């Protein structure tokens, strides 16, 4: 029997690594993949909490998170293609039109 806190800790580690990828990398593609990592970390917490508490809501919300992740990847990659066509770069620091 594994303690529930082990799953929550693993979920926090995956989420934290995703945060590192989002704040420390410049490549937009890797930043989008790091967001997927963060969503996956949250899913681990949802499934573990649902299964230990005996509540089907955990599985349902993990399912919803997967839907949101798929939608986010589709829109994010479409944005990336549009940006690459415009500026020929995948460097996030080059995209500062709205920055002042």
């Amino acid at each position, binding site marked *: 029997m*594994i303690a*529930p*806190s*082990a*799953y*929550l*800790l*693993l979920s*926090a580690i*995956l989420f*934290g*690594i995703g*945060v590192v*990828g989002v*704040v*420390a*990398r*410049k*490549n937009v*593609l*890797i930043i989008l*993949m*790091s967001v*997927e990592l963060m969503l996956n970390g949250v*899913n*681990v917490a949802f*499934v*573990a909490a*649902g*299964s*230990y*508490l*005996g*509540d*089907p*809501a*955990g*599985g*349902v919300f993990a399912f*919803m998170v*997967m*839907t*949101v*992740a*798929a*939608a986010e*990847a*589709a*829109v994010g*990659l*479409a*944005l990336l*293609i*549009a940006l*690459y*066509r415009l500026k020929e*770069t*995948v460097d*996030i*620091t080059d995209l500062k039109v709205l920055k002042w």
Partner: protein
Amino acid sequence: METVLFILFGAIAVCGALMVVTRKHPMVSALYLILTLFAVAALFVLRQAHFLAAVQVIVYAGAVVVLFVFVIILINVPVTRMPVERASTTRVLGVFAAGLFILESAVLARRYSMPIGPAAEVGTVEVVGRALFTDYLLAFEITSVLLLAAVIGAIALAKRKI
């Protein structure tokens, strides 16, 4: 046995995640992302969430990562034009903050334990399907609107002329 499998797949997931954020080329990152997603699917199986494990493999590894790989090949940035990663103060601080978050949750997870309810399956087809079509029907229906919006948005953004 369960503990051994948990440690094994947990270690694979964490190592794969580390490789995703540290590799230079996005294609290598995408392949390590698949490794991590499979390890997380194995962890779902350990928690008896077979349906979610299958959805994880089909939707994530089979659709999302393939989309990533497709875009990486499509825009095909030469290695010489990849962004150069340099350590700046804000980024070091960001990594430090993420490490602090992991440490904090480790301390909290050691101190406070979750109450354990009656043993129940949460991720099988039957349980998830029943919950989705009764208690969470509205959320399920709204999901379809979200997906429609994502489809329209993706086409509108990526198309040259509409």
